[in-house]
């Protein structure tokens, strides 16, 4: 019996060792095998506080501040720490209802119960004051300083673009962005996003079980400081931009002005537009929807880059240049014109009464349709080429060398290619070898399939002003420092027409203003060279187009003006261009009567007034 009992010692020892082994195995599992506990421990105490850098500023070409930041505050929530708050009090402070409160909290909890989410974004400084006093009553809520984009002038909304919260798609694509981060969505805010945004910083702080801040984690060893965004120096003359938008009041269209020697964009007006401050801060979503809903005036549509027009008679300058280059035209070439140019089957391209026959300068001055139809015909029917198609291809190549029919590469998103039809297009439309110069004769006078953006027109004007070359138009000249120019914009693009053929065209353009189709654009103190265009438009009244540069020698400004449904180029576009040139070169405009007439001209059925008022109402929200 005693021996049996003595054996029980081993059973008892075995039992003890069993317990010890279970504990060791469990410890091994909990401490070595799984990682969730260390993650939970960090979640318990560590708060990752993002340090948002100030976005870079934007200055105009004279150093005037255009875009800057204003302090704003995001109300953050950590759902786990929210202790049945006095919902009503917080709701009334924020101006939301209980239902909205619950749904926001639910959304935040779905993201993470431990990590902060934005509860109310971009609270302005004024509103923040009320909130700050009461905030201690609501555990789980705190504010995070952010910045709000502000614009010194209510102009150039499309050029600046706007910023907004990074979308889930962006976040999935680019690991830099986290929910709640801001990102440039359009304009230079988008194209210079990586320069402007700066570098976010991260502060890791330790919080105890009662959510008391216990200081930085490991004495800030893992903290990073935010680096402010880099400032941009724009090419824009904000006074000119503002003046341009004023002139375009109640008109659809655009004004693009470029400094020919540099390609710097002096103004990029598109009309109708809106106040860029409308799309900043927590009013953005609401205002954006309202602007988007306006399908009549489409204020979000950037006509300067995204609207294609037939260039009309301005395109005759292309005929003049390419014709000389191809050797089928000299300044002395004369063609007669009896109110038009017959194209067969009893049809003709009509022309207006003028002296006949004319040489090249006279033809530009009077914008003779017949003359340029003949020039175009001789280019396409040139026997130097084995057939229409080859001659057309060559013509197209030379035309495109002026920056037509493809993106110029402006530093803004959304630019259109424009359209110089390919031979393949005509093959498809008319059949292979079934089209001749007379089939496509409307190209001669800038009608038909050709499509040009206002930016391309202005660039064309700059290329003539430079007598044969241009630099890529751009909105930002320097990054960080005033004199650190952006390299890619310093390249000269030579066009396919020899410089010696330009002077006669320039002479013709000077005559357009002094004694031709656009005498309304005449400015006594400066010699302006210009060309009118009147683009036929299937949707309504003709578009009024004018391109110009000035002064004639050593030009400082090249410009394109498009006024939709405004009739002749000489009526609206030419005087507006002239006023813009005066404003830019002289800084003040003396021709108050012209100015008044232009500003007062309402080309959008008077309904546009209501629209402007609507926008003003929005801004007061």
């Amino acid at each position: 019996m005693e021996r049996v009992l003595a054996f029980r010692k081993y059973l008892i020892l075995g039992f003890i060792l069993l317990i010890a082994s279970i504990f060791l195995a469990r410890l091994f599992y909990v401490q070595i095998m799984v990682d969730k506990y260390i993650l939970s421990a960090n979640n318990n105490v560590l708060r990752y506080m993002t340090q948002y850098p100030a976005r870079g500023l934007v200055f105009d070409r004279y150093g005037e501040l255009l875009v800057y930041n204003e302090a704003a505050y995001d109300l953050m929530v950590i759902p786990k720490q929210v202790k049945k708050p006095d919902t009503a009090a917080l709701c009334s402070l924020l101006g939301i209802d209980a239902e909205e409160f619950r749904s926001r909290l639910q959304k935040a909890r779905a993201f993470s119960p431990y990590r902060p989410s934005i509860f109310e974004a971009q609270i302005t400084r004024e509103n923040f004051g009320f909130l700050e006093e009461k905030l201690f009553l609501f555990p789980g809520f705190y504010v995070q300083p952010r910045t709000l984009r502000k614009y010194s002038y209510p102009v150039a909304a499309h050029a600046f673009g706007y910023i907004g919260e990074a979308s889930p798609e962006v976040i999935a694509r680019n690991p830099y962005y986290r929910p709640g981060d801001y990102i440039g969505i359009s304009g230079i805010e988008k194209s210079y996003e990586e320069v402007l945004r700066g570098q976010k910083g991260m502060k890791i702080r330790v919080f105890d079980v009662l959510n008391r801040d216990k200081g930085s984690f490991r004495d800030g060893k893992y903290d990073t400081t935010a680096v402010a965004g880099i400032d941009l120096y724009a090419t824009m003359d904000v006074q000119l931009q503002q003046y341009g938008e004023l002139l375009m009041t109640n008109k659809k269209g655009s004004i693009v002005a470029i400094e020919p020697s540099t390609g710097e964009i002096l103004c990029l007006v598109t009309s109708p537009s809106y106040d860029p401050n409308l799309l900043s801060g927590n009013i953005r979503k609401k205002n954006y929807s309202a602007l988007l809903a306006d399908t009549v005036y489409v204020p979000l549509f950037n006509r300067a880059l995204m609207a294609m027009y037939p260039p009309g008679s301005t395109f005759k300058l292309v005929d003049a240049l390419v014709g000389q280059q191809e050797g089928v035209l000299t300044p002395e070439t004369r063609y007669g014109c009896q109110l038009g140019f017959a194209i067969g089957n009893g049809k003709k391209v009509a022309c207006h009464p003028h002296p006949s026959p004319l040489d090249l300068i006279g033809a530009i001055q009077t914008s003779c349709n017949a003359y340029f139809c003949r020039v175009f015909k001789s280019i396409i029917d040139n026997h130097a080429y084995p057939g229409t198609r080859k001659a057309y291809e060559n013509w197209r190549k030379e035309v495109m060398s002026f920056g037509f029919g493809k993106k110029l590469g402006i530093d803004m998103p959304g630019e259109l290619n424009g359209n110089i039809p390919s031979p393949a297009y005509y093959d498809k439309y008319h059949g292979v070898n079934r089209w001749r110069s007379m089939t496509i004769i409307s190209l001669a006078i800038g009608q038909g399939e050709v499509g040009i953006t206002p930016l391309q027109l202005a660039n064309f004007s700059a290329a003539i002003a430079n007598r044969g070359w241009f630099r890529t138009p751009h909105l930002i000249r320097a990054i960080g420092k005033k004199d650190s120019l952006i390299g890619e914009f310093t390249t000269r693009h030579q066009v396919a027409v020899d410089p010696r053929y330009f002077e006669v065209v320039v002479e013709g353009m000077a005559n357009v203003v002094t004694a031709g189709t656009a005498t309304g654009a005449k400015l006594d103190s400066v010699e302006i060279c210009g060309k009118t265009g009147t683009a036929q438009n299937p949707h309504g009244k003709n578009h009024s187009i004018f391109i110009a540069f000035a002064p004639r020698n050593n030009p400082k400004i090249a410009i394109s003006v498009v006024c939709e449904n405004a009739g002749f180029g000489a009526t609206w576009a030419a005087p507006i261009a002239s006023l813009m040139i005066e404003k830019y070169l002289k800084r003040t405009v003396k021709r108050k009567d012209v100015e008044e007439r232009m500003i007062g001209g309402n080309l959008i059925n008077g309904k546009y007034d209501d629209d402007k008022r609507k926008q003003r109402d929005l801004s007061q929200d």
Partner: protein
Amino acid sequence: MTRENKGIFHRIDWVLVVLYLSMLLIGWLSIYAAVYDENHYHIFDLTQKYGKQMVFIIAALLLAMGILIIDPKFFSQFTWFIYGFFLFMLVVVIFSGREIAGSKGWFAIGGFGIQPAEFAKMATALALAKYLSLQDIDLRKYKNVIGAATIILIPALIVMLQHDTGSAIVFLALVIVLYRAGLTGFVPLAFIGLPVLAILALLINKLILVAILVLIAGGFYFFSKRKIRTSLLILALFLGLSGFVFSVDYSVHHILKSHQRNRIEVLIGKQTDLKGAGYNVNQSLIAIGSGKLFGKGFLQGTQTKYNFVPEQSTDFIFCTIGEEWGFVGSALLVILFTGMIVRLIQRAERQRSRFSRFYGYGVASIILFHFAINIGMTLGLVPVIGIPLPFISYGGSSLWAFTILLFIFIRQDSSRFELV
């Protein structure tokens, strides 16, 4: 030189003493880490728990030395007096004691609380050893089993009346002593088997469980000698266990208190409310699990330092060790405890005196039970039962009681050649 002439310090088991001292040191440092306050960074600061624990430790060492110089026969001769005295104190404390954390088991003496239940374990271990060492005691006789059970159950029931269920259950650990003394193996088997069966009953379909019982009973019947008596016994056992299976739900919902029910439901995963009933165990696991292999380092435990773990200087002290010393430190402590318990059993087996041997088993059982339940609780293996980790947890009563418990045995062991 005869053995009697050798000094007491040459005859005591230094392995146990060194294990004891190292646990005291680990305990003290862990309490320092658990309640560390930058404004009172000094470990000797008497306003803080670690300063107080140091005083408790000094007092415990004095107690230990005092016990070592007492005549070893004193304890066996005065067993009944000691037992009676602490039973009396257990009753007195119900009427005149202070209530701490829902339990009325504390005497307030000066600024300190004394908890007689801690000492009653020692007294009961003595009494049980004394009873089992009496002539003619044979645990195959029901009369003697009832006698032994009475010695264990009286203090347990009184402690129960103090609303301190955890401490009361500890007394049941002494069944190991009874088993070693000859009690049938069915009793300890039932002690382990019934809780397992209860948890199974909560987890799986009861009919399946009963079907399994039928198979087991059938198996036993088939391999037994198929006498009437055995068959009836198997049938009775089967019916009893089946009844037990079906009564578990009722017991859980109507007999247990709500917090006890919650703790069981958390253990078996029926409650996963990490902010409510599951909070303690979850935070405890986070603390231990986040220690990884080498731990976060002394005073670097964030779970501990920022008070995510409740009761971290007392019942959940093991979290601090797990978090700051990692698997290496935790495993070392488990090995230290296992070593102490195994050593106690080995030394107990060497005793000539039945009293000393059974007392040694009593000491081992009580320490084993505390160790198993306390660490098992922090690891989420057993329900939360609020009993301290011997020698480690903060608290004077617990430390002194365990010191006395252990050193009476060390004293007996040192004189094992004189005691018969």
